[in-house]
């Protein structure tokens, strides 16, 4: 089971957090800090799995952004590793070359994508177009009032 999904930048700032098990707000900050430190301190030559307390962290680095997933001991690490890749690919498809700013400015969309992929800690959907179907439908509904911000983009290298 997946316990949480985090997106953090290299400065340790949380860009997205989603918990599938209730964690107190005060403990979240501490948990995120530790998780981030664990992952940031690891070099390129090190494996992407970290054992932490009673669960495991699986992380992947994309440019300056880290995606960290906390999973229970029973989860298959490699499949989660692939899930992260899949998630980022979906983001990339939706935002066409996703950047950290996209994620910050469109947090709700990212959440919708994540919700389509993972629900209460289990993977629901991995097909990209099916993941994006509800989101595109929603975007059509939202009478085009919101325009995408024209901010400089820092592409995430895939």
């Amino acid at each position, binding site marked *: *089971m997946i316990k949480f999904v985090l997106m953090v930048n290299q400065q340790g700032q*949380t860009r*997205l*957090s*989603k*918990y*599938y098990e*209730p964690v107190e*707000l005060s403990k*979240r*900050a501490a948990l995120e800090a530790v998780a981030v430190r664990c992952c940031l301190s690891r*070099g390129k*030559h*090190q*494996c*992407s*799995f*970290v*054992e932490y307390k009673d669960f495991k962290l699986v992380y992947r680095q994309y440019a300056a952004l880290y995606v960290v997933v906390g999973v229970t001991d*029973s989860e*298959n*690490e*490699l*499949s989660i*590793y*692939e899930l992260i890749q899949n998630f980022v690919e979906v983001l990339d498809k939706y935002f066409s070359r996703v950047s950290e700013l996209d994620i*910050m*400015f469109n*947090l*709700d969309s990212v*959440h*919708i994508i994540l*919700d389509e992929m993972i*629900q*209460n800690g*289990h*993977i*629901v*959907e*991995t097909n990209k177009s*099916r993941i994006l179907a*509800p989101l595109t*439908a*929603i975007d059509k*509904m*939202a009478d085009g009032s919101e325009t995408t*911000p024209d901010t400089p983009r820092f592409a995430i290298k895939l």
Partner: protein
Amino acid sequence: MALKIVKGSIDRMFDKNLQDLVRGIRNHKEDEAKYISTCIDEIKQELKQDNIAVKANAVCKLTYLQMLGYDVSWAAFNIVEVMSSSKFTYKRIGYLAASQCFHESTDVIMLTTNQIRKDLSSPNQYDTGVALTGLSCFVTPDLARDLANDIMTLMSHTKPYIRKKAVLIMYKVFLKYPESLRPAFPRLKEKLEDPDPGVQSAAVNVICELARRNPKNYLSLAPLFFKLMTSSTNNWVLIKIIKLFGALTPLEPRLGKKLIEPLTNLIHSTSAMSLLYECVNTVIAVLISLSSGMPNHSASIQLCVQKLRILIEDSDQNLKYLGLLAMSKILKTHPKSVQSHKDLILQCLDDKDESIRLRALDLLYGMVSKKNLMEIVKKLMLHVDKAEGTTYRDELLTKIIDICSQSNYQYITNFEWYISILVELTRLEGTRHGHLIASQMLDVAIRVKAIRAFAVAQMATLLDNAHLLTGNTQRNGICEVLYAAAWICGEFSEHLENPMQTLEAMLRPKVATLPGHIQAVYVQNAAKLFATVLKGEEGNTDSTAAQEASQLMIDRLPLFVQSANLEVQERASCILQLVKYIQKLQQKDVEVAEEVNALFAGELNPVAPKAQKKVPVPEGLDLDAWINEPPSESESEDEQPKAIFAKEEPKHSRPRHTEVDEKELARRREARKQEQANNPFYIKASPSSQKVYQEAPGVEHIPVVQIDLNVPLKVPGLPMSDQYVKMEEERRQKERAEKKKKEKKKRKEKRSGRGKKHDSAPESEEDITPAHMVDIVTEEMPENALPSDDDERDPTDPHKALDIDLDKPLADSEKLPVRSHRAAEAQKSPTDGETENATLQEPKKKSSKEKRGKKDKERDRKKSKEEKKKKKHKHEDKEEDLLVDQPDEPVLQSEETSQVAEPPTSSSTNAEVSDLDFWLSNAPVPSNTQEAATVAAAAPEPSVTAPDSEPDEPKDTEMEETKSSKHKKKKQKKEKEEKEKKKKKKHHHHHHHHGDGAGEESVQNGTVEEEEPLPPMSNYCLLAENSYIKMMMEDADEVYDIQGNLQDGSQVVVSVIFENKCNSFLKSMEFNVLDSLNSKLQRPEGSGPHDGLVVPFQLPPGVSNEARFVFTVQSIVMPQKLKGTLTFIVKNEDDSTHEKVDFKLHFTCTSYLITTPCYSDAFAKLLESGDLKSSSLRLEGVNMPFHHLLARICFHHHFSVVERIDSCASMYSRSIQGHHVCLLVKTSAQTVSIDAKCDEPTLLGNVLDEIKQTFSQC
């Protein structure tokens, strides 16, 4: 109005949206907190407006702030407002915020129930979707209960998008509201075969997660999952299914056998590493569950190990890591296959990645053997030297110690080597694990007597060079070692070469810089050393040495007397005074050595850590009983006037009192335990501690040290452990040579005699004899210590509540609550059975109970109706059925009903079980169960060892498989029956409490407890016994009832325990019975009516085993006696004899009765029907509690209690041919009268006779 809207939208233009907020935070890096607090103020303003768009925008920003760690719970109500917006764009913002911020204790959640229900049933699939997603994050027990039915309906929604979400959220619902599991499970199971792969995958996910926690309830799904596994192409799903199988196989080894092939195929074919990894993992789990050593599976292990090797050799660090991780699982069961890859694993120790190195270390832990321990540790020591970073080095250190000390130093052949390793480890800089090394030193020195002399020498050197360890403050952790060194030198000072020198080293001024607890040990042990010095000098005429020692003590101790540490100070001043006194005596030439030594006499033995816990409670001692009865109510009432002087605590009613006291007692007990644990003067109640003192002088007779002269006892200076490696090599070579010589000798011996015991197997690593014959003093345990107590599962685990039998068909009461008007009193959370019980004590007790009774009856009646219906169309959807509307069944009742509802369904569960069996056994299984039974009768008990002991009969294997499957089935059935029995017991108590009316204490405690423990009962009776063998029979413990087949007669299974009482091997046992007209032993097809049955096992000396025999019985109204003989061969070392023993099988009428529960109204109907003949029985002088009496009848005569009211009970049982037997048991003052009714008077008469006999025996 219009103006207001315009104004609102104008306002909105100036509001910050999320993007502005994010940008703003980025632009205020210096004063972020201040900026955010102004933003929050703005948001608060925005939330006050009526415009929903503004509110939604505000909530959206709050979600972002919440992510940054700001508490936004104050806006919970606004979030609910936004959630209930009709516009989807806002609604989803609300739900997103809710899913991020709400948790179980958010109180506004209860306001959302109706909104969520509305959204769930919305025509817009996205409304439903967003509600489901949100709900999965913040579902509470209340929400789960109220919405379970709605969600379950959604599981059959037309859109797969909704279906899959609904299926997934059911998992959360189950967790929060376990009662929903059984009603919802059939539909969940359906979803496994949903046409949409997404839904399928969701269902697989949920069931996998459920099954992982409580695998046994999901075994019956194995065939379905197997089908999915072989058909699915979705790797994500495959991984889950394979994982599920990993959880199931330990429960059903046959499943494992079936899985091996498809899994190995997958391993060969898949290109997905994640799937490969999962397959390997599950294959490992399967192999672990199959009893080890199956030769035909070594190929699978090899395959796994090979694949893992490829992973480990891969340049991808992730794969390398996982490969090592999986390898460590194989290691546990098949160490040999992993050990051949030692090179690879040692290589991984050099990896750049620390996690990989740690994994490799873990593996090494399991790979050591006596042979390679020294070599591996040597490698590790090298790594210790060059490791950078203290954490990794510390890890190495602990691993070295773990590796060496594992399973009681099993692999250490040379303890001198180990001590020197420990000493070398003390030179590590900056380690935190000084205490670990210290405890190892102490442990080894105490437990390995042979090593003490060497250890003491080493420790003395350590003490001498203490400045090396303490010189640097950074190395502080290591000074713990000095604690051990000082203690060892003091305690075993008789081994010291030069105690005076060590004494001097221990009293150096520098010692005062050590931590207090170490100084204390120094001081105390200096005294011990001093005693030893005195003893050593005693014979000498020249007493100067002794006096020097005293002077040294007197000179140096004052330093410690001034210590700030209380312990040090106290010990030092005591000892200082003592030494001063001794000095005086010395000056008068008085011999004091003996007295001083007496201070430290006696040997300390290691005590097992759990020793205290294992002390059995002496018979007759009830730790929970009051020593002095607590003042009873009446007394306190009498003493009321006294209360004038002391303010009395408010009086409790008595039952409440006991409850509180129970808690209080437990608390006090805990406190007492704590206190005792902390109290050094508390003498533990271990009887063997006294033994120690008795044995102390007789230590000599323990077979100790057989010193190998190859190893010099004393190595000057600090020895390098490497020396030992070399020495060990030499020693082993020598040993091998010697062994060869011996073997030759043995062979010679062999030729002369039949020396079977001198088995000269090829040399294995286990043959390496230790350098010292080391006796590891085992830790002390109290006599007759209790067997180890397993750790219970965490009681707070939410999954515990989900341990629910899913194969049982649903009872009517088990349905999801449907929205309806609920009576106020029923609105109880389903979990608080205790409070419910408590309410029973209220003054209204009686009336409420009466009500309940009525309700029960009503329900029962309904149920019986329902049952009839159910038979017709079993698979009708229950939740559609609105006939019976009982929204909130309290747990107690629903449990009860489910128990009651069980019996008619057990046949169907059996069918399911046998389906599984059928699926699992590859051999053709006869479709007719009776036929299967005959096959089983041919060899009812294939002993576990049978396949191993007769591997050379391949034609039998197929047969055996059928047998074993059949055997399993029986076992399962037996288990089930036992369970039923247990349940029935509970059931009976239940009734009993209801019947007993007011004020039964055990009810109030919320637990159903036995008033007095029942004496143990066994149905086994002695069948026959001679000097070789003992046969015990259980009188037809199980009765197979072939329904609707009465003419054919029925089958009775007899279990016989064979116990070998002699010292020889018993084999070729044949069991034969002289058939009567009425009863026949079932023999395998093709054998004559007088052939015996081969007992399918052999009995080594002292072993007992159980076999079952099936008999066909025509008429059951009379008891039967069958004569039989057992023939067997007694095999001694040199000869074998045929022996036989005769026995008589006695089939009582009771043995034809099956415990069948019956509800009171059915019972009443039965009695009213008038078809039954009656008879009665009076028993005089029965001197046992009524519930014992009932329990005896239940146990020995297979009855069940229908109802019990005070000292009167009705009981029911049914024969295998369908005769009803009803009893009414009454007791008054040692007289028991039993009125009985049955439709077969002869049977009844016999049963009553047997009951009478049972009670006349006791």
